[in-house]
């Protein structure tokens, strides 16, 4: 897929013209410039792969639209080392398959000759992508994997991560509930058997310990679980529990709320993961979403700005009117990837603007404000601005509002929650 203004021109004439131009350039210059510089002359070529089909299709499309939105926002032109250059995107469908991601990343670098790589979605896919990128000494900016494995294996030297660590996702949610009176004493976790969700759970465990919230059950479910009735039944058989937390994605939240409400399991608080703001959750659950707690990396009410937008609200409004839907935080996160490249390339060496070692150094030194939040990286390439605001859904036609931290709160939280 091409995201170039006017489309990717692959006509025979253009190929012949390019070949002729290249030959003349070689002949007249008498030297052979770097193949990458030659192939991408005049344009910054961004490339990535996303799971555009499969379980993560919906979120992948938000990422793709986020990239596209940035390109539209900058009018397909950015400044690189003081020179204005066009912008071009190549986005492939990797079907959430790490082998395919590796293959596509190789293609992006060696065949498509991209200058900048945006990360894949998911831990294993990002690790596969970064392994190939590292072999070619490329930098990767990603916002699709929160796992600490990224930090440990590729962080800082290859990969720069715009999303906070997985273990930090739910800390604020537990902190928030601990402020409530009477404070919750027990929690049951539903943990998806996958490394990143284990990390979510580890963070929750640690924070619960510090608030004296006892973990009374940890229900492990396989990644491809379809039926949550057995899990709901186990939770019902536990007896009253103050908090049920399902640190997982939107469909898990939907299934679990359906089953918990069907069986009449009534916790005082339900934490439904980091994708409760995905529209499918409200569409599927309707009023049963009321008082459900979620976490989000970003919300339109936050007080951020960047060179292109005065506020997250403005970003959201323009994004929504452009694509016809209200996105989750992933849109701002995806938009921030090319924006970060844009900032890092602004003062690049005009003689070799896409030198990857210099680009990585620029990323390490970078510090700027975006509508996604302040961006700077630690030594592991992880964004310094970690932590997720806590949101809660209110009303019969539920609307999400930030309830924690207090500095960002738009509403007082509801605890205990109303029955399903």
């Amino acid at each position, binding site marked *: 897929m091409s995201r170039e203004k006017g489309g990717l021109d692959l006509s025979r004439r253009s190929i012949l013209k390019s070949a002729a131009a290249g030959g003349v350039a070689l002949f007249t210059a008498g030297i052979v410039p770097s193949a990458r510089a030659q192939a991408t002359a005049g344009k910054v070529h961004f490339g990535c792969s996303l799971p555009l089909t499969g*379980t993560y299709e919906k979120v992948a499309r938000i990422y793709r639209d986020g990239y596209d939105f940035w390109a539209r926002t900058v009018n397909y032109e950015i400044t690189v080392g003081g020179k204005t250059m066009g912008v071009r995107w190549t986005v492939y469908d990797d079907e959430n398959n790490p082998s395919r991601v590796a293959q596509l990343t190789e293609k992006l670098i060696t065949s498509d000759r991209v200058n900048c790589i945006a990360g894949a979605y998911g831990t294993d896919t990002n690790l596969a992508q970064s392994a190939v990128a590292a072999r070619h000494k490329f930098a990767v900016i990603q916002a699709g994997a929160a796992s600490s494995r990224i930090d440990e294996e590729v962080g800082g030297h290859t990969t720069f991560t715009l999303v906070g660590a997985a273990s930090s996702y739910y800390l604020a949610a537990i902190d928030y509930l601990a402020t409530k009176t009477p404070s919750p004493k027990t929690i049951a976790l539903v943990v998806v058997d996958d490394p990143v969700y284990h990390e979510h759970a580890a963070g929750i465990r640690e924070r619960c310990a510090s608030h004296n919230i006892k973990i009374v059950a940890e*229900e492990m*479910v396989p990644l491809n*679980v*379809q039926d949550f009735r057995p*899990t709901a039944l186990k939770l019902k058989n536990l007896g009253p529990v103050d908090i049920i937390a399902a640190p997982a994605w939107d*469909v898990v939240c939907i*299934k679990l709320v359906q089953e918990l409400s069907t069986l009449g399991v009534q916790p005082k608080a339900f934490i439904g993961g980091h994708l409760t703001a995905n529209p499918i959750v409200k569409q*599927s659950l309707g009023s049963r979403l009321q008082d459900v707690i979620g976490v989000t990396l970003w919300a339109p009410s936050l007080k951020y700005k960047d060179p292109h937008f005065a506020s997250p609200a403005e970003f959201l409004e323009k994004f929504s009117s452009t694509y016809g839907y209200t996105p989750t935080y992933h849109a701002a996160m995806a938009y921030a990837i090319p924006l970060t490249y844009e900032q890092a390339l602004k003062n690049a060496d005009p003689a070799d603007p896409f030198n990857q070692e210099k680009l990585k150094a620029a990323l390490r030194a970078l510090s700027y404000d975006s509508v996604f939040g302040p961006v700077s990286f630690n030594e592991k390439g992880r964004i310094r601005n970690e932590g997720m605001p806590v949101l809660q859904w209110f009303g019969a036609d539920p609307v999400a509002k930030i309830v924690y931290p207090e500095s960002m709160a738009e509403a007082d939280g509801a605890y205990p929650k109303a029955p399903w």
Partner: protein
Amino acid sequence: MEDVIIYGLLRGGIYALAAFGFSLVLGVIGIVNFAHGVFVVFGGLLTHYLATKLGLPYVPALILAAVATGLLAGLIQRLFIARTFTSEPLMVLVQTFGIATVVTELGIHYWGSQERVLRVETGLPPGFFIGNTFVPSFDFVLFLLSLISAGVLYLLIQKTRFGRAVRACRDERQSAQLNGINLSRTFEQTMFVSGAWSGLAGGMFIALSPLAPYMDFDWTINSFLVMVIGGLGSMVGVLVGGLIFGVLAFASSFYVPTVAPAVTFSILLLFLLFRPQGLFGSGQGTRK
């Protein structure tokens, strides 16, 4: 334990409904239809589409989707399977696998691959208790509906001209032809019924749990397991097999969730080893 059995039975009704068509097609046409799960998923997603996009009430959407799924199945029979079912069984197996892949990919392309669940506002009371187990009303209604559908199918097979033709084709194909039964037409009708009942199962399931195009193979395998447990050639066997499978699947997800599929398949292996004809099958000779 009581709750595990009851909830398993409630799901089992839908599994049985999905497996009737699989068993029917294997018994009558003599093919293992690897595209069978596609019908379940198609029926479910079409029900969802009709209810959410066109605003149809649940029951009309369910019936329309079931009929449409039956037509899709009949079309597949006429265009593809009818031309190859007399070939090597492996050829038909590969063909139905190919059909499943094509339909699924087209479904993903035009429908999207995300999981969908249908919210049905029934106005029913939340439920009632059997012993200490709370039985959700809607689950129970769908369970009853699956039993009624099984009954209707039973009557269709036992009491109608179509049913007599189906049984004749199943028991002695050549004699059936000599008696003037149109084989192609009967097979198309069989495939229609298979698709319609599978679509009905999908439409009922999506009101309880999400469905997505990529789940078709799971449903094919589930239907196969139900048939192995219940036995080929027996509608009662499929019904009982579905209920047993429902309990087994629920119990394994309840007690050993992370290895639930391994447990379910172990049961399949045990059946194949010690009772290959299933609980109600009439002996290995019935397998074609």
